[in-house]
């Protein structure tokens, strides 16, 4: 199967700042046409087509809905690999920031301090929002290397947030 361009699939312009409402409603439209529930009594060929389209739509929706994944996907369309195991260089100040967060999580977890964890979650959320604003500009002006930096940071922040949620879950 030729790989589908997720933006084309949802009939959206290939930009970082997208209209989430259209994304959502077009996603539902596509699922209405392709979901396996529509093909329970269909031929195997039609079932296959349904599975392929419905799984692609789900994957595409998850990717475009998340700002970090959307940015990484946009970069990948321009041949830039943002998430690379071997090369995830970060500016030193961001590494410092990240270490501080990790330490704060560990301390809060050891002290069973859920409210500190929740505050951290919010703090990182706000930092993420401002990164998204920068990304809008960087993509608009096609500043790819800056956009790559921001994308890596954003994805890292998503990981930290996931870890905080895990810690909160453990303490609950």
């Amino acid at each position, binding site marked *: 199967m030729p790989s589908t361009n997720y933006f084309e699939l949802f009939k959206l312009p290939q930009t970082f700042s997208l209209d989430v409402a259209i994304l959502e409603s077009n996603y539902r*439209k596509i699922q209405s046409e392709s979901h396996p529930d529509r093909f*329970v009594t269909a031929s195997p060929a039609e079932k296959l087509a349904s599975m392929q389209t419905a799984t692609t739509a789900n994957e595409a929706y998850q990717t475009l809905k998340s700002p970090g994944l959307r940015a990484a996907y946009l970069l990948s369309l321009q041949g830039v690999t943002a998430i690379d195991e071997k090369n995830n260089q970060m500016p030193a100040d961001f590494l410092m920031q990240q270490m501080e967060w990790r330490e704060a999580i560990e301390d809060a977890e050891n002290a069973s301090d859920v409210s500190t964890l929740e505050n951290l979650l919010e703090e990182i959320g706000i930092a993420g929002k401002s990164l998204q604003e920068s990304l809008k500009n960087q993509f608009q002006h096609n500043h790819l290397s800056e956009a790559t930096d921001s994308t890596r940071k954003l994805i890292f922040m998503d990981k930290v947030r996931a870890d905080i949620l895990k810690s909160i879950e453990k303490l609950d």
Partner: protein
Amino acid sequence: MALLQISEPGQSAAPHQHKLAVGIDLGTTNSLVATVRSGLSSVLIDDDGHALLPSVVRYLPDGDIDVGYSAQAAQSQDPANTIISAKRFMGRGLKDIDVSLQPYHFVDNNNEMLQIETRAGIKSPIEVSAEILKALKNRAEKSLGGELVGAVITVPAYFDDAQRQATKDAARLAGLNVLRLLNEPTAAAVAYGLDNAAEGTYVIYDLGGGTFDISVLKLSKGVFEVLATNGDSALGGDDFDRRIFCWILEQSKCKPVNAQDTRLLLTKAREAKEWLTDHASAQITSILSTGEVVNVSLSTKQFNELTQTLVAKTLAPTKKALRDASLDIEDIKGVVLVGGATRMPQIRLAVADFFKQSPLTNLDPDKIVALGAAIQANTLAGNKSGADLLLLDVIPLSLGLETMGGLVEKIIPRNATLPIARAQEFTTFKDGQTAMSIHVLQGERELVSDCRSLARFELRGIPPMVAGAARIRVTFTVDADGLLSVSAREIASNVEANIVVKPSYGLSEEQILAMLKSGFSAAEADKQARALAEAKVDAESLLEAIKNALQQDGHLLSLNEIKTIREKIDALQANIHAGAGDANSNAIIRATEALNAATENFAARRMDASVSRALAGKNLENLNL
């Protein structure tokens, strides 16, 4: 009985076109079957007017099998041969369950799904569940006056792959065509949502006899989107009974009791629990087989204290589900209570307290799941109905692979919308290596030993190359039933690797076939006739579908492509109409498969075209908003 209006009266299809499809709630304690008739979803009752069928199966001395109320009545006389709550054993090994209060003779088959020795032989929970499903199938066919085309069977949302597969296998044993495995809270949301024209974010809190589920859904214009689900597949009303049971033993200082008395006291405990829903205290009296007399009184206050940890156990998954959905309590428009155990006042209070709103209880908590399943079955079977439903459900538990050092690497996260496919690349680490093994696990923890083993896949037929040169792309697909399948391909050579699955807690295909065989002892000639008839029906329906498709969308194909498809159509027709002596089910099946394969591109193009059409319409609509 709750009735749901889902289409205009008089609009429903004519009887001869209406396909008979049912929804089945296969519960731990009680099971039900429902169907949509004249646009209304309703539960089918038995000859005595009962809607519920107790999920109890008794293997009788004369070889018969009793299911339901009469089996339930005999449980304390014949506990070892009367299986209750079999659902708790589905897809589980002996080490997974608490055997202490179970009167059965369990058979431990080295970490595979447990079995029970009865006077009718060794039975797996799948076979026990199949008896319940058969009883409901018979009830439905009798009451609807025809053979069912299929059934939607509900499962707890928090059931893992092994438990789902076991349920599907049970349906197959019962001779049911499974249209879909549907999550119980989602089924409840469908029934509630359609009945109340609900829009917004709702929580379904489902505490049944043996399982607890919590689902957060967004309801909007016939779309039911599950945002997150969580639960405990071993927590329910049964556990409240056990707390009372232990308390009775403590109070009357008569322990340990034998299997009969255990069943007797558990039944008394359940009665007391249900009584306390409407009364301030319950008197529990009983004479044990030893002659000891039990006579104790349990107050609501004591009962609440005994069970407050159980109530709290439902709130942790509730919090997790909300967090996974990134929602606060204020975002929840309503909380729908499902399951008989939500009748307990302490549950209602706890839910009201947690969500800061009174829960919704206007649909019968026993029946709502079956009613929703029937609506889905009606839609899936292709019956016209007023409601255009779309259910977007999720996988409840993450799927992962075993990596170095006994760690699990996640490949599909929990709460991902289904269907989903994820590919992962592997390579060989020895020269000439032609096989490798992949261990798939389900669960949220990091260590293999803390997750549930689903299956080990053996990849064979990898072309021999130097170490690290082979690139094997393994695709994990979870379908709309929540069931996993795996395919693998070596990328450089494009060779499909052969996969041998060893399910950790399931039945193999051979075991199922053997069970099916022992069930039907039809004569060989009979079987051949049936196979031929089935092959013809399948072939005819494919032919008709493709002819329709060609008429509608033939323009999507080149003349050459149409010619190829026409040839396969002609070949299939020749096979169907071969003289009686020459008619051969295998030849028809092969020709059907060839025609199907020839239409794969066509099907994909039709799908793309219909998606494009839908999006074109949508954009206009957006402009108006």
